[in-house]
């Protein structure tokens, strides 16, 4: 009757490989990494689901998967009601406010109330600017928000930055940090009750495997 414990893993991007490696260190090897969205693992009680990191918080909240590896920033952006069981250490990044190098905006205080902000993180951005009492216009874009200032779509972007390289390459400077983030193991709240022993075992294996 009981189905396998489903673990969602970022299907692409910078979080994919370290996530797979973290599982390997916990002795859970993914068997069909190359082909499938759903993959068996070396432990028959667990199966891996490859999903967009951005969607993982939702999958976990609604119980489509029991566990999920994704960024703390994404869990907050999605306002996902999940348990963050473990800080996996990798995937370090900051959610920052950035403007073009030559912009007259030097700090957050210089931002006018009618400014346009391009971002993949509309929720966190709105909250941040509301907290400053600024009703900026939030433009939700997918990927490459760095492009927005170049094309005049927005004067400001809110995006994640791990090394700062991409921002630099696009002549953007950071004027504020909204939050620091790392990769987390998120758990569905009901699954944490109904599959407590399996999930706790999974947790201690991850811990034993040594986090980054």
């Amino acid at each position: 009757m009981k189905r396998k414990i489903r673990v969602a893993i970022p299907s692409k991007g910078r979080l994919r490989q370290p996530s797979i490696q973290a599982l390997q260190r916990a002795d859970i090897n993914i068997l069909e990494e190359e082909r499938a969205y759903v993959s068996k693992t070396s432990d028959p009680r667990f199966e891996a689901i490859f999903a967009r990191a951005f969607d993982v918080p939702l999958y976990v909240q609604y119980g489509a998967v029991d566990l999920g590896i994704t960024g703390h920033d994404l869990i907050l952006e999605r306002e996902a009601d999940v348990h963050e069981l473990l800080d996996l250490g990798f995937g370090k990044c900051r959610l920052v406010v950035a403007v073009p190098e030559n912009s007259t905006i030097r700090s957050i205080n210089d931002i006018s109330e009618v400014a346009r902000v391009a971002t993949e993180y509309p929720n966190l951005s709105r909250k941040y600017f509301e907290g400053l009492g600024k009703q900026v216009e939030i433009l939700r874009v997918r990927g490459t928000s760095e492009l927005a200032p170049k094309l005049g779509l927005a004067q400001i972007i809110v995006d994640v930055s791990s090394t700062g390289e991409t921002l630099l390459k696009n002549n953007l400077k950071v004027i504020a940090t909204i939050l620091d983030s790392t990769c987390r193991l998120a758990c569905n709240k009901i699954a944490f009750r109904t599959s407590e022993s399996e999930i706790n075992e999974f947790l201690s294996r991850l811990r034993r495997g040594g986090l980054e």
Partner: protein
Amino acid sequence: MALRPEMTAPVARIVTTRMPSAPEPIRLFYVCNVFRYSQSYVERGREFRQAGVELVGCNTPEADGEVLALLISSLKKIGLKEVRVDVGHAGLLKDLLKATGLDEEKKGILQGLLGYRDEARLKKFMDQNIFPPKLREAFLQLSSCRRLDEVSSVSPVSSKYGKTEDHLRNLSEVRDVLADYGIENLVFFNFSLTRKIEYYTGIVFEASVPNLGLPLGGGGRYDDFIEKFGKLKIPATGFALEIEKCLQALDAQGFQPQKGEKIGILVTSRFRNAAIKAVNALRNAGVVALLDVKKSDEKKVIKYAKLAGIDYVIFVDSSLEKPATVYDAKSDVSRNVKIKTFLQSIGG
């Protein structure tokens, strides 16, 4: 103007304004649509249905036990398996959180840690925030309790911390009532459970099944809420189940609804009086009987019966005592038989 997000407030209003002289305790139930707006990415259903009960005018552990027992039996009755209920105590958590003296943000972090049941992180947090030893011990013990009977062995907490001792006693008493109902093995303790509703004062609970990641419903005790609508303080407890979630859970468990195996019969006759009598007799016997109101000829009646999925067509003579012609649509055969005998043959 507001759309109701839940039914407890409307029930509280009805109790105070429309039922002032009703003898207490009052037991009420509802099945209603409620509305919630969410700005989340997923288009959540903004209207959904709840079925719930309220037990008003009583604050005994027996009242809490009755509501919990009804919750569990309701879920079992609709066919769900592996039902579990997690119980917390809103007053206990509130009083102990208050005793920490932390600001709201840190209280939020602490509540999260209690939910993760991560002892190491909890200890670290409490050390960083300099918890008094007794309070520290209370948090550690309560967050590790999985069962209500473990709560009774939690060492007495200082009376400085609000009504903590009353709350702990209350949990043990409810546990004893549940044991009398024989359901204590389905009920778990979860110190961090809050239900995100402000008005709860006593035990709070959530029902769930494996393989459905959202609670099916829940409820709790709210002893200070009804007085907001009237002048009297009236204790109460209740629960609400989300009907759509229950259906999803049944689906996830592979529940097959029993097919309606009722037999459908079409009655036709040149003698209307006899036909109506026959229809009534068949209905009284528990079968679905229809009168041929179109007064068509035999061929058309049979054609209609086949198309409409009717099992039998009965051609009634002038009286029910006389044998009728019974046409069986499945085998395409007719026979002459008295209606009583026919009913016996189909087990009516």
